[in-house]
């Protein structure tokens, strides 16, 4: 199903009459302007992080600054544990993506390929849970991780948000398209259910798993609320929480905050340019899968 969706989403539409005319030129121009507006804040973030100390507002109308400096990046690594935040973000993001994938592939397989009592109820429960605002849970979850001794720990940041309803829903939809005959053939060959999952189901679900891995990574990397509650010590924070700390500590040092924001964003955008299809079709599919 996801494969079909990906074919459909790509803009392969070729209309009968692609004439070159005035309306085509005007519309394209409109989109050039619009795109400029949307990309501008990102450009502004990068350029502001490179302006020499104290020039951010003075030079604000120099769209192409003549003087560039890396001072703000130097102070970022000297005055704050920014390097730690990068490491924390990478490790926590990886841990979250793997944990969530494990839960969603096993659970999604059960929902897609087995009939058992209570299946429809579980499915409904998972779909409805998607509507629960996270803010309803924060107090309970906070008290729970205190009791479990998980404050300031990676696991405390990862486990409570790892059972992703959208994730299991996405895997289930994808695995419905896996041919039952193939699974039965493996059973006839004497493979047990867990061997079948590992060596037949997972390889066949590879596209969905890759897409989910990317989406889970993006989700954790950009998430603020839960890690903000779990981590108070600067050396344990991921980037999103660290940047929030920068804002509180250096209210007037916009260059420092922009440097921190740039380093947290640009690698993601570069990665995205390589994985564009997967990210965009994945987001459209997880989204439209909900309707």
């Amino acid at each position, binding site marked *: 199903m996801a494969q079909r969706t990906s074919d*459909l989403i790509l803009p392969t539409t070729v209309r009968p009459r692609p004439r070159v005319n005035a309306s085509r030129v005007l519309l394209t121009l409109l989109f050039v302007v619009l795109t400029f507006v*949307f990309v501008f804040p990102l450009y502004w973030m990068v350029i502001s992080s490179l302006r020499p100390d104290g020039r951010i507002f003075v030079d604000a109308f120099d769209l192409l600054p003549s003087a560039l400096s890396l001072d703000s990046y130097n102070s970022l690594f000297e005055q704050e544990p920014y390097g730690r935040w990068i490491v924390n973000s990478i490790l926590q993001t990886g841990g979250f993506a793997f944990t969530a994938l494990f839960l969603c592939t096993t659970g999604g397989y059960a929902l897609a390929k087995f009939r058992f009592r209570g299946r429809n109820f579980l499915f409904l*429960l998972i779909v409805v849970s998607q509507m629960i605002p996270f803010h*309803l849970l924060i107090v309970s*979850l906070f008290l729970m991780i205190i009791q479990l001794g998980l404050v300031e720990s990676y696991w405390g940041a990862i*486990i409570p948000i790892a059972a992703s309803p959208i994730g299991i829903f996405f895997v289930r939809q994808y695995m419905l398209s896996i041919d039952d005959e193939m699974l039965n053939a493996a059973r006839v060959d004497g493979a047990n259910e867990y061997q079948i999952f590992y060596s037949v189901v997972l390889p066949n679900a590879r596209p969905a798993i890759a897409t989910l891995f990317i989406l889970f990574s993006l989700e954790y990397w950009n998430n603020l609320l839960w890690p903000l509650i779990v981590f108070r010590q600067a050396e344990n924070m991921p980037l999103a929480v660290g940047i*929030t700390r920068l804002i509180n500590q250096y209210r007037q040092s916009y260059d420092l*905050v922009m440097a921190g924001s740039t380093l947290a*964003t640009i690698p993601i955008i570069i990665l995205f340019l390589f994985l564009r299809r997967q990210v965009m079709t994945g987001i459209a599919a997880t989204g*439209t899968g909900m309707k």
Partner: protein
Amino acid sequence: MLSSILRIVHNKKVVPFVFLAPFMTIFLIFKVYPVILAVIMSFQNFQGVQSQEWVGLTNYQNVFNLVRFGQALTNTTVYTIGTLLILIPLPLILAVLLDSGRVAQSTLFRTLIFLPALTSLVVAGTVFRLILAEEGFLNLFLSSTLGIRPLRWLETADLALPSLILIATWRWTGINILYFNSGLVNIPRELYEAAVIDGASPFQMFWRITLPLLRPTTLFVVVLSIIGGYQVFVEPFILYTGGGGPGDGGLSMALLIYRTAFTSFNFGTAAAMGVILAAIIFVFSLIQFRFFGVFSKED
């Protein structure tokens, strides 16, 4: 002993539950149980794990008597309506134009307009703090092109919600274009070809074919926008450094819940606010689903 465990694990009836166990364990402990706990706490005077007493509806009464809660509820509702008014029609029209074959390089435009969706809301907040600052780019731009006097975007109560809606427009337009686009490609081309033969104008085709057939997608984006709009938290949290902004003009319900819980440590009240927020979101979702008749079609 081990062999009997193995026999159970390989039993045909048990297998699906083994596969389900990891997800359901985490789901029940960290999603279902905290909801129940929050509802219980909302009826308690919660002063730590050891000391709780039942107080009936007192927390809810306190919430509704709180001036800040009324303001947060109003702010959040206006914000949600504002984002709906922009983030449904704008991406819809842009998606239709990009899909019309009248725009060169439409994939490139789609990709570039999508880029803001990759930035974390934290970064979106920091960048707009800079752009909206009194000496920032927006004021410079407005005064040099339109001659508008510099506005104090971040210090004026009435400008808080427009600022937040501006950020939302920047951040979500690309994603909503993507959703509408995936709805558009599902509309059979033959319908348009038949309409062209019947002499229909592009405008008529948009009203009579595109809009009605896009309704499931539109429903989905509307529901998503309402659910997301009512949970707005990170943008005001960053823009106003954890506070509610000037005169609480940017105070959202989620932000108030966070502050009630982790600044005032008033867990019972925070839980009651969470229940109210969840109820609002739930009711809106149900109304939308009924209105669009989704329940009757499925299953």
